[in-house]
């Protein structure tokens, strides 16, 4: 059988890219997309490990991650919309009132 | 052992009472219930005292496992020391509540209401009782810290402007002390676990065989916490601020009950658990105590705020108590224990009468008072009695304890006694100067009253040199009208005829304190009967004996030719 290490490495790279995206992008929607990217990267690792161990639990976990991601996106986007309505901006930097 | 867990009942009654009072809808009802609960607690306290056997060590014990893994127990017990502290607490709380009947609303802010004052006071009583009764060090620590909660709200919720800051300061000091204490409590677990089965029971810990350095480190934690609590010299600044800002009732609970935990803890934990280390620390503690005695008295002399002054007198008194504890003689320790009780009674009376004075004058600034004696002779008399108790006049109970401490200090080292004894002069100065400025002199309305009111027509003013008497009526009325606006700010308590004297029920509230001071001044044997067996046990546990007199009784002397010649 083929080795799953490349998949895991790819997952790590995607995860890191997602991280950097969260840190550098200011549009809330894009930040959200980067979070989704990180989640997907994790899913890839889970699926890869499922194959590695011959165990479907990894796939189940990936499935649940998707479900939770869906819920999260729904709520998150609603929040972004609400913020946008009141502040006319979707930049995460504008919501910086909670500070010293 | 009787079936009724008396000590748990003793703690539970005020605790349940506090919850009930807090939940009651009307303030008047809450006051009544709170008073009844405190009287009920007094009853339970008396019941405990009646079952107590003199000299019987720890009694009425209750022990239940709490956290078995750490050897923590819910363990209560009462011995001579605890009993006196418990009785002091249960006696003072009803008096404070009765006093606060009309005073609880004074200057309260949004954070407090009459009802909550009573509820917090009961909670404080319950927790203080638990502190005095706990025979498990961990349980002690928990309730020791828990007392800060009601105390914080009592200080922060009721009193003068600036009480919030005072409450925070109080809390910071106490939490700081508590933190150090926690370190030692954990350390006790470690040494206890190393010795075998971990146990926080006081009796088990007292048996531990500690290495010298471990004992000293553990002692340091306990001692610092208790020095903050008691308080002694460098860690006392919270006391002055707190007593200045809080209501007199709160101050009584704080200084007369809560602060006793510090000196109680020194006896119960420092001396009983770490006897060798305590003797090692004696020079330092004695020095601090001496500084506190003199420093506190000098500070008190310099104060202008009546309540702050009274608070600082306690610094001096706690110096005496600590001194008595740490000179390691039966006179000193019995004296210190008696001092704790007597100071509780005397200072409570002083705080409460000062509260009455302040209420009548609408200010706590001594420099703006004067001349109260003519208008309020009963109040002045009680104030003077309280002051005389504070300066340890023979015939009032504090004298007995102070004399014992001075004797013991002298026995320890003559110069220690000599420094401590200056406290009695300084006490006379701060008490009498305070009385002079508050009570004596012509006063705000006295001149007007002398000119008009029939009662004062035959005023001894006529005995003054003639020059004074002739212009009294005109000058007097002018003074009266000029000063009335300032006294009028007393919010209703000051009528056109000036501050009124104490009413009978107010006297009745204070009467038990006066009676106690006088009775115990002439016949303190009940206290000795309870305290002496405890002190004997303690002395033998610590391993010290009283110095024998240089010339014991029964020495035969040839009565001829003695002297230098």
């Amino acid at each position: 059988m083929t080795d799953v290490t490349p998949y895991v490495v790819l997952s790590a790279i995607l995860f890191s890219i997602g991280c950097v995206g969260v840190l550098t992008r200011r549009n809330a929607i894009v930040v959200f997309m980067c979070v989704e990217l990180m989640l997907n990267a994790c899913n890839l690792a889970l699926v890869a490990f499922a194959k590695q161990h011959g165990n479907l639990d990894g796939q189940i976990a990936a499935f649940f991650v998707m479900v939770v991601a869906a819920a999260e996106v729904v709520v998150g986007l609603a929040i972004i919309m609400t913020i946008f309505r009141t502040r006319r901006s979707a930049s995460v930097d504008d919501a910086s009132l909670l500070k010293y | 052992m009787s079936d009724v867990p008396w000590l748990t009942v003793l703690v539970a009654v005020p605790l349940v009472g506090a919850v009930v009072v807090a939940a009651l809808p009307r303030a008047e009802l809450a006051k009544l219930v709170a008073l009844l609960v405190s009287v009920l607690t007094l009853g339970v306290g008396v019941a405990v005292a009646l079952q107590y056997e003199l000299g019987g060590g720890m009694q009425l014990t209750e022990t239940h496992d709490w956290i078995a893994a750490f050897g923590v127990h819910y363990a209560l017990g009462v011995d001579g020391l605890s009993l006196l502290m418990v009785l002091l607490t249960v006696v003072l709380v009803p008096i404070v509540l009765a006093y606060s009947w009309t005073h609880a609303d004074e200057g309260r802010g949004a954070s407090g209401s009459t009802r909550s004052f009573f509820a917090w006071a009961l909670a404080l009583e319950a927790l203080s009782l638990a502190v005095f009764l706990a025979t498990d060090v961990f349980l002690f620590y928990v309730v020791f810290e828990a007392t800060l909660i009601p105390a914080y709200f009592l200080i922060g919720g009721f009193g003068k402007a600036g009480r919030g800051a005072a409450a925070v300061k109080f809390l910071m000091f106490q939490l700081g002390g508590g933190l150090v204490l926690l370190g030692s409590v954990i350390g006790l677990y470690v040494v206890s676990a190393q010795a075998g089965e971990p146990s926080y029971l006081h009796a088990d810990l007292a048996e531990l065989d500690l290495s010298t350095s471990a004992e000293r480190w553990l002692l340091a934690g306990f001692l610092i916490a208790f020095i903050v609590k008691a308080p002694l010299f460098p860690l006392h600044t919270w006391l002055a601020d707190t007593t200045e800002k809080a209501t007199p009732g709160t101050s009584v609970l704080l200084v007369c009950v809560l602060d006793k935990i510090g000196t109680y803890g020194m006896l119960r934990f420092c001396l009983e658990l770490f006897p060798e280390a305590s003797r090692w620390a004696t020079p330092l503690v004695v020095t601090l105590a001496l500084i506190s005695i003199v420093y506190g008295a000098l500070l008190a002399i310099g104060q202008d705020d009546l309540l702050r002054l009274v608070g600082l007198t306690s610094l001096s008194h706690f110096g005496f108590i600590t001194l008595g504890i740490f000179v390691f003689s039966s006179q000193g320790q019995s004296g210190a224990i008696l001092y704790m009780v007597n100071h509780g009674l005397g200072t409570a009376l002083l705080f409460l009468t000062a509260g009455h004075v302040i209420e009548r004058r609408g200010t706590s600034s001594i420099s703006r008072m004067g001349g109260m004696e003519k208008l309020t002779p009963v109040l002045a008399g009680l104030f003077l009695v309280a002051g005389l108790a504070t300066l340890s006049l023979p015939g009032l109970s504090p004298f007995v304890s102070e004399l014992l401490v001075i004797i013991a200090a002298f026995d320890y080292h003559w110069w220690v006694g000599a420094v401590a004894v200056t406290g009695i002069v300084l006490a006379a100065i701060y008490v009498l100067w305070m009385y002079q400025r508050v009570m004596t002199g012509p006063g705000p309305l006295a001149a007007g009253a002398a000119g008009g009111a029939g009662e004062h027509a035959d005023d001894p003013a006529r005995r003054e040199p003639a020059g004074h008497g002739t212009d009294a009526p005109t000058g007097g009325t002018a003074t009266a009208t000029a000063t009335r606006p300032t006294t009028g700010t007393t919010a209703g308590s000051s009528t056109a005829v000036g501050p009124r004297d104490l009413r009978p029920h107010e006297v009745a509230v204070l009467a038990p304190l006066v009676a106690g001071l006088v009775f115990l001044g002439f016949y303190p044997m009940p206290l000795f009967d309870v305290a002496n067996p405890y002190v004997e046990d303690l002395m033998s546990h610590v391993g010290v004996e009283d110095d024998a007199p240089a010339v014991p009784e029964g020495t035969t002397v040839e009565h001829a030719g003695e002297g230098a010649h």
Partner: protein
Amino acid sequence: MTAFWILAPVMVLAALGILVVRKAVHAALLLAVVMISLAVLYAVLDAPFLFAVQIIVYTGAILMLFLFVMMIVGVDASDSVVETIRGQRPLAVLLGLGLAVILVASVGQITLGTVVGLDAANEGGNIEALANLLFSRYVFVFETTSALLITAAVGAMVLAHRERTGPRPTQASRAAQRVRDFAERGEHLGPLPAPGVYARHNAVDTPALLPDGTPAESSVSRTLAARGRIRSAPDLADDIEDVQRALGGLPGGSGSPGDTASGSGHNTENPSAAAGGPATDGDPGSEAPR
């Protein structure tokens, strides 16, 4: 592995693209690329069910939702290139690189051993096997996720819902409001004049002319005005004068601006002034009927 080696660079490039593109829509599209590629990799990794779910849920639903919100927020919204937080970008890149290096290095260090493969687990079909697991061992988790989804749906509705703060306006209240606005701020009370009413041209981009010959700017759509696609008033004024001159009837000075529609001959003489609206409604700027 062929699919992997083809798709992996694509995915990494697309992911990196998300970091740099300015427009959110482009980012969404690049994300779609990554996700679809992922779906393919799932298929390669013997997870056909997840392959389907990835495409249906992620690419189909979630990404659509992203785009939908993006349309509401404004499709043009794009980040400025300037980083406002000092040191954020280099630090982020540094730390991200660090993370990647550590993760890759540590994954590379580990020998995972032989791959067991899912052939045995997927024997009765991947979906059936998953279903067996999902409805036996993970049934409680599964049910919990349903609660989560419902909560999320309700939450989204609550968040996105705009509460009506006042009663719904009726026709009468609107009319009353208009009169109040006119009284307080002098806002125009009647309907706006139609374009080109008094002009020679009645095209939408030609403002109507007032009786004194000045153009009524408000008769033209604001959008046209914003685009600059409007015919200038002087032009039209010239036209009118030409007409007047052509008719030759009137002396130049009689049509003073202050002279309102008071029954002089202008209206009747102008054949194109069929509509009586402006006359009855009063000119803009006239005194309010109090």
